[in-house]
């Protein structure tokens, strides 16, 4: 948990201007060449990982790359940077096949896969049903998800495993070759930062995390919210006989960073102009609690507060994309402060702490 934090970036595979989506507020349309450029440069700049969303109808005109295809394509053009899903939807694919896909990607990428899996949130319902998948209620969805996580890990680590669940099953299933990473690619399971800290955010997902995950993640969240969630996770670990110290902690966040305060303001104005009426960008000071907005010094200070909580991996949406200025500036002026600089520590996979059961 302590030590050099890792910085990864989320790849903008959907456009979000015109108030369509707050993750990519300055991206008008998809551009394969710019995506390829950002991936190649991200790796060169020292980002330790890239992450791709897994949705079907997000963005302007519902145009979003299919997540797994995109990650696999990126594996073919990178060699050091880790590749993760943010987050892979359990409902879209048979879990055994998911395990096989992941093993293959881990082999192809020589051990660079970060397996971030999710049960689906209420926001997913529309796309799930649009594509003809069966929606499950909250309790069933979480139960199906927990079964899927178990199946995936069995496929990766056991010889011809079988599993009989309420929703999923395997029968002496073969998954060779094994993933490269041992005992298996890191499994990430996340919570949502949108809920107020005072809500009781999904106690059951805390147990699933304590039981099965190598790492926890939150969607963009304030320091206070993270602190509250970490408290809940500690309790869940105790309940489930898991050493909390073995759980990696990560945060997805959005960053608007520029050289000077003046440039930051101009970018904020641009975001507002391009996203009229967007609730997300109504109140910048409030947004600054969950997003990181400012010059390098301000962003560094904010990140430090999360690092103090124990967060050691950041997954960043750079709000100025398709410009790569923010991404470059962050690498040049913020990452070195945390000891993660050009050529530094891209290799964060490999050895895992087991959930300890």
């Amino acid at each position, binding site marked *: 948990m302590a030590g050099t934090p890792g910085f990864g970036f989320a790849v903008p595979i959907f456009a979000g201007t015109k108030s369509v989506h707050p993750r990519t507020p300055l991206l008008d349309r*998809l*551009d*394969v*060449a710019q995506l390829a450029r950002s991936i190649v440069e991200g790796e060169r700049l020292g980002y330790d990982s890239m992450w791709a969303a897994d949705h*079907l*109808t997000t963005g302007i*005109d*519902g*145009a*979003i*790359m*299919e997540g*797994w*295809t*995109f*990650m*696999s*394509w*990126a*594996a*073919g*053009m990178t060699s050091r940077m880790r590749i993760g899903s943010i987050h892979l939807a359990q409902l*879209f*694919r*048979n*879990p*055994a*096949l998911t395990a*096989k*896909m992941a*093993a*293959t*990607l881990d*082999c*192809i*990428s*020589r051990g660079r896969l970060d397996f971030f899996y999710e049960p689906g949130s209420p926001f997913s319902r529309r796309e799930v*049903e*649009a*594509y*003809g*998948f069966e929606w499950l209620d909250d309790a069933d969805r979480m139960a199906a998800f927990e079964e899927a996580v178990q*199946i995936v890990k069995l496929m990766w680590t056991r010889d011809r495993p079988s599993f009989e669940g309420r929703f*999923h*099953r*395997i*029968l*002496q*299933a*073969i*998954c*060779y*070759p094994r993933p490269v990473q041992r005992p298996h690619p890191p499994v990430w399971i996340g919570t949502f930062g949108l809920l107020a800290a005072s809500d009781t955010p999904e106690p059951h997902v805390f147990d699933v995390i304590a039981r099965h995950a190598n790492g926890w993640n939150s969607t963009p969240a304030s320091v206070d919210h993270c602190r509250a969630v970490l408290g809940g996770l500690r309790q869940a670990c105790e309940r489930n006989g898991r050493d909390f110290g073995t759980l990696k902690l990560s945060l997805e966040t959005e960053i608007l960073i520029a050289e000077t305060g003046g440039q930051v303001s101009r970018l904020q104005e641009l975001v507002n102009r391009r996203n009229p009426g967007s609730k997300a960008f109504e109140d910048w000071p409030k947004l600054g609690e969950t997003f990181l907005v400012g010059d390098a010094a301000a962003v560094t200070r904010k990140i430090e507060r999360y690092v103090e909580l124990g967060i050691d991996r950041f997954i960043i949406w750079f709000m100025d994309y398709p410009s790569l200025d923010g991404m470059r500036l962050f690498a040049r002026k913020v990452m070195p402060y945390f000891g993660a600089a050009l050529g530094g520590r891209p290799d964060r996979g490999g050895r895992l702490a087991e959930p300890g059961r």
Partner: protein
Amino acid sequence: MPGYSVCLPTFAGGSAFTKSIEWTELEAFALKAESLGYSAVWVADHFVLGHEEGEHEAWTAISALAGATSEIRIGTLVLGNTHRNPALVAKMAATLDYLSAGRLDLGIGAGWYRLEQESYGLPWVESVKERMDRLEEAIELMKALFTQEPVTFRGRFYRVTDAPCQPAPIQKPWPRIWIGGGGEQRTLRIVAKHADAWNIPAVPPEEYARKSDVLRQYCEAVGRGYSEIERTMETRVLITDGSSQADNRLASWLNHWRRTAGHEPLANEDAINRAKSVYVIGTVDECRAKVEAYLKVGVEHFTPYFLDYPDTTSLEIFARDIMGELGAVPPKRQGTLDTQGPQ
């Protein structure tokens, strides 16, 4: 003028000379094929064909190949329709075609390998008719997702509601659709109706001619131009100098698959003769003659596994002395490029 592409042995036993499916070797073979002018690389969609010695998942593999290559087409030969939600497959295909600048060949079939599906918890459809019905409905759904915006589709098996499928494929109206199989009751009818290309595992030339006639009749029946469908065939190639080492490997490879299918192994010499009669195996002149025999019955495109993989000897000799001699067309791309697309 025929086309030639390459099936990558992404499962142990795809090659006769190695069981290794190490990825850097597979990628290197694909890049070599690209440099030699082969038009496409293909990956089969199974989970356990290689047993404990392994197999790579098809879509992950071809997507990574798309990222590592720039000219050669990439395809599945063929996706098992029952492995995934076909609406999701359409989205995967649209994305891969978009990312690869229009290089996707989307091969699809009904799915036949019961053991792997049941072991993976995929619902096995016993009825062949239903598997065919599902395949046909899946293709109709995919075509709708490739061309309409958004799509509402209510089929017997599949449904989507107000579903967008963007970004759209680069190839118009869709990535080339390859349908695999030779079943004369139903598969060839579906090929006639829907395929841009038809593929079948190796059969003798006379058999290929006969099945082509059946296809032609179905085309007439459904009102589709027979010449619109590219006629292709999968096979195995091994260009040998007749050494006993190659022969022994060949025999044990053939017997491995015979045992897997529940047949008794053959004595070495019988196995070798069997392999040579079914596949394109022999000296370069013998292989050229076999290819010519297939061209005569209308095969327009060969999709072989090269049995000496990872060695590239057969791959190179085939390109130089057979493709070069008999001519090869540049890879077929579907429709005009969408110039409103990326960049």
